[in-house]
């Protein structure tokens, strides 16, 4: 889908705050994240691990882990409705049907003691179109086989009655994918779906996601730390650092003219396919502790262009191009 094919916005996240309240203090893991996602578009959410991208996804699904995590501020507009204010019952209606998610590790995403068919059936029964709730078991199983075939799994008729441990990682991730889309959600969050897969399977999985998106027109929020995947997969990309999105824009512009020093450093550390392979640069220093975040720009301590104002106050969001923003004092507005 070309970036300018502007579908209407399906997901709007405004100033999302999700913090961990621990005995030792408050961890501001997601500290004011805002972005929007359009129909048929793939938005990449990139950043080093621990920058809060997975937690952002969980906050959207309102599936925060027990023990202290809580979304305390911001809005998540799904089709215009702020799902943060939904009751648990309403949220259950939304999950799987309007927003769904694929997890990182296929090994543990499927229940080891239930057959694939059974786990698929649960998801299929929830779809609105041609509801199967009263359909006889045989017909539901036929749908399940179709769902497996749709995610390009060979010999789905046998696979239906098999258990997770009898399948390879890649195949399992496809089943998880089938489960995720069987409710025909408008938005699919893919939380590093290919990280646990080896490279060849990775490529196939990405192509599969692309094909499924083309068929259904769903929007995908693709979370990864791998820029290579971003280049191939995403229309737009948002770079996250220490709980905030520091730069967001069309993928080609980000690759060619990254405006935020952190983005620039990230791209520099990715080996290029084309041209000579020089020494790869690394980013010195450590991301700031999420317990006592600096007042100013959070990348200041590691930024080569750091100035006094970077330390004094957090830079606002600067529009540096068509749909391209960066949070940096040095960014030159368009």
């Amino acid at each position, binding site marked *: 889908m070309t970036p300018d094919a502007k579908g209407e916005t399906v997901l709007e996240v405004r100033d999302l705050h999700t*913090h961990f*309240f*621990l005995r030792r203090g408050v961890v501001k893991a997601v500290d004011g994240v805002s972005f929007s996602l359009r129909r048929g578009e793939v938005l990449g959410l990139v950043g080093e691990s621990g920058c809060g991208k997975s937690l952002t996804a969980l906050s959207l699904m309102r599936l925060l882990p027990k023990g*202290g995590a809580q979304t*305390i*501020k911001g809005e998540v507009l799904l089709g215009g409705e702020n799902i943060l204010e939904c009751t648990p019952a309403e949220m259950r209606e939304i999950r799987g049907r309007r927003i769904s998610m694929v997890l990182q590790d296929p090994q543990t995403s499927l229940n080891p003691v239930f057959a694939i068919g059974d786990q698929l059936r649960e998801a299929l029964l929830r779809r609105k179109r041609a509801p199967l709730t009263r359909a006889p078991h045989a017909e539901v199983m036929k749908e399940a086989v179709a769902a497996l075939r749709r995610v390009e799994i060979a010999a789905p008729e046998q696979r239906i009655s098999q258990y997770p441990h009898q399948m390879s990682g890649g195949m399992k991730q496809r089943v998880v994918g089938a489960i995720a889309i069987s409710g025909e959600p408008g938005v699919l969050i893919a939380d590093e779906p290919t990280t646990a897969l080896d490279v060849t399977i990775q490529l196939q999985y990405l192509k599969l996601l692309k094909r499924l998106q083309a068929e259904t027109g769903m929007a995908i929020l693709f979370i990864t730390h791998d820029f290579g995947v971003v280049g191939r997969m995403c229309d737009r990309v948002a770079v996250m650092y220490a709980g905030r999105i520091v730069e967001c824009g069309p993928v080609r512009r980000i690759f060619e003219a990254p405006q935020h020093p952190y983005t620039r450093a990230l791209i520099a550390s990715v080996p290029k396919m084309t041209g000579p392979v020089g020494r790869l640069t690394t980013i010195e220093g450590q991301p700031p502790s999420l317990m006592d975040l600096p007042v100013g720009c959070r990348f200041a301590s590691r930024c080569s262009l750091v100035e006094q104002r970077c330390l004094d106050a957090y830079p606002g969001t600067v529009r540096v191009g068509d749909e391209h923003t960066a949070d940096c004092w040095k960014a030159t507005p368009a």
Partner: protein
Amino acid sequence: MGSKARVRRTARVPWIPIAIISVIVIMALFAPLLAPYSPIDQTLRDKLLPPAWMTGGSDKYFLGTDAFGRDILSRLIYGARVSLMVAVLALTVGGGVGLAVGIVAGYVGGAVDSVLMRLVDAAFTFPAILFALLLSVTMGQGLGTLVIAITLLLWASFARVIRGEVLSLRQRDFVALARVRGCSAPRIMLTHILPNVLNTFMVLVTLNIGVVIIAEATLSFLGAGIPPPTPTWGLMISEGRGRIADAWWVALIPGIAITLMVLSVNLFGDWLRDRLDPRLRQL
């Protein structure tokens, strides 16, 4: 939305169970100093007196007396010594053996597993009473016989449950990874399997404390354990069981003592395990 953030109440340190356990341990260690009377000294005239605060009770005997006029409080204090020792020894030995057999059988599998599991089956069928009589005839009375008898009782159920646990653990990735890294089987069992079954092991230990103390009573009664009149909690209960109608305190007081001990060990065990469990430590 985003109501005032409330700090997650992490598990408070369980003071009451810790207090109860320490009281019991102190009773066991300093019995001679604490007990007002000798536990086996009889005064038949003062038999079956209710606790002091009840009608008919005398403040000479705070918790009342048993059928031989022995002071229940002193017997409770001295009894703690034996019951605690038996519980600790039998559970460590019996539980340990069961744990080892369970892990080896579950992990190694094949012939070793079959042989060990059939031994477990055999141990299940042997009535404890037969063991007790055998040991009382061959080895005579005393703590050693008692601990061995109870160990023979315990290890089988430990082994069976732990093996079940290890069977599914063996399939997990971190075990496969360890094997790939070339770890030797004993190392894997010790460093990877053992920590993961400690959870269930703790459950079994707390489950069996009550069983061990009561088994000690039955065995002593049959002459295989500590011979009466040396007081143990289990024996005090079985001595009082006939009198529940008229002198209920003779059996009830040791019963409560055992219940408190098992309860506090359970609660303390749970809290301790939560503190030690890496996954939950940071909360």
